[in-house]
């Protein structure tokens, strides 16, 4: 009961969403640094999340619905401003808004899980029994990136070791607080609470909070994102994330898990054939050894042929995809005939 009421209080305190807006940009600054670090491993033949081609496809299928990107979010109440504009000025304003929307839709990085730190710097057995508490020493020099900061722990038994990732995150938040981030993770990230929130269709809020709270390569971040994407896939609620910054991450996750059928069906329902085609090409890029990829490469297929090959080879719901393709071709033929 207490857990329910506290969860309800959490959902009511939506002022956190305001903080999320501003801290997004600071997070992107930190995120971009690790982003570039990930793009440097050229040894893998496998395409990574950070490849230009992959990013291009993902940003295209995310879509750019201005109404959804700039929908009213909880922020300070300002009276609306009205401007008198000519048609050209309106067009320019719309272009400026598209630019801003593209920046807001910048995808958060997808990184492999970070390896645990277990470096012991010194073992001094003579200090054993000196104190019952640990000493945690942080270096608060201003100009070092947080990843390179020295944070060491002196245990009561005398060992001097580097701090683990959780301790690091917590102490960096103590000495260099970031807006919107809490010292202890909010209760919303527990399994039961997440299920409740997903039932209310609030995946985007959970993902935004997760982005602010956790580092992109922490296990918590990956776990929350995986849970959100699984739930979306199970219930087919892909349009919740459409035209948001999390869509690319979801598409990448599904493509890597080879469960693209649901997303494909959803796209065809909403008649987004170009997006479906780019999704299939992304799938072939990531899994070049699959049968459909080899067929497509041998036939040099493009457009709806790609979809047909994919439907025949890989998908489990091939019937629906083929029907939808036929309907599309009919409407295209009628349109060109008329």
């Amino acid at each position: 009961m207490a857990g329910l009421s506290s969860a309800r209080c959490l959902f009511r305190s939506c002022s956190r969403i305001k903080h999320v807006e501003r801290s997004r940009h600071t997070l992107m600054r930190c995120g971009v640094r690790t982003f570039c670090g990930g793009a440097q491993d050229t040894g893998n033949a496998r395409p990574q999340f950070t490849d230009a081609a992959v990013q291009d496809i993902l940003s295209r299928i995310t879509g750019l619905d201005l109404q959804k990107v700039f929908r009213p979010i909880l922020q300070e109440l300002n009276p609306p401003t009205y401007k008198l504009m000519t048609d050209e000025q309106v067009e320019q304003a719309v272009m400026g808004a598209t630019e801003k929307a593209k920046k807001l839709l910048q995808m958060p990085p997808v990184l492999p899980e970070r390896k645990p730190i277990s470096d012991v710097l010194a073992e001094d057995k003579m200090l054993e029994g000196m104190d019952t508490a640990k000493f945690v020493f942080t270096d608060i020099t201003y100009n070092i990136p947080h990843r390179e900061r020295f944070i060491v722990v002196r245990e009561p038994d005398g060992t001097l070791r580097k701090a683990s990732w959780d301790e690091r995150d917590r102490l960096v938040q103590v000495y260099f607080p970031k807006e919107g981030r809490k010292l202890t993770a909010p209760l919303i990230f527990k399994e039961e609470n997440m299920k409740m929130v997903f039932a209310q269709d609030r995946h985007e809020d959970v993902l935004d909070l997760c982005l602010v709270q956790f580092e992109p390569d922490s296990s918590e971040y990956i776990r929350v994102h995986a849970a959100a994407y699984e739930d979306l896939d199970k219930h087919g609620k892909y349009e919740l994330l459409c035209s948001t910054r999390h869509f690319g991450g979801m598409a990448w996750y599904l493509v890597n898990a080879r469960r693209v059928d649901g997303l494909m069906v959803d796209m065809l329902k909403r008649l987004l054939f170009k997006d479906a085609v780019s999704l299939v090409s992304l799938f072939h890029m990531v899994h070049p050894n699959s049968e459909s990829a080899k067929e497509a490469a041998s036939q040099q297929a493009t457009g709806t042929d790609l979809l047909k090959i994919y439907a025949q080879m890989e998908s489990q719901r091939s019937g629906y995809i083929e029907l939808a393709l036929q309907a599309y071709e009919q409407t295209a033929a009628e349109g060109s005939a008329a």
Partner: protein
Amino acid sequence: MPNRALRQKRQPQEDFTLCPSTSSEENPVNTMVHLSSLLLKKYHGGYVVIRLALAGHKQANRPFYRIVAAYNKRARDGKYIEQLGSYDPLPNIYNEKLVSFNFDRIKYWIGCGAHPTNPVSKLLGLAGFFPLHPMTITEAERLRARTEQTVAGAEEGLEVGQEQAEV
């Protein structure tokens, strides 16, 4: 024979002219004139120390120290030159005592000839920045001897109690 009269007695104050300091107490000629600093006392024979200053005097029974570079003659909690870190002696919910050091500035002040006090040296030794302070080791040994004594005493007391119960 070296002329001892010519050799000057080495003042700790002389160290400050080696490193560029913006404070105008030592060198009012080279820096901007701050009117307030002309009214400040000039510490004769004073030197800079890195020490713990108690902060948050509003709460009783809740100490919190700032690691601070200050003049030797100043009050413990009075005006300091620069804050170099913090130390919280009470452990938190994760059983940690949080200590922070701005190592960059500590190196600067030690380079300028600041003296760290014993508690600060012990903390820096525990952090691994300085070698371990001998008193830390001595205190650890003393604590261990004391706990062994109390444990031995408790065992003796138990045995005596058992014998009395038998008898």
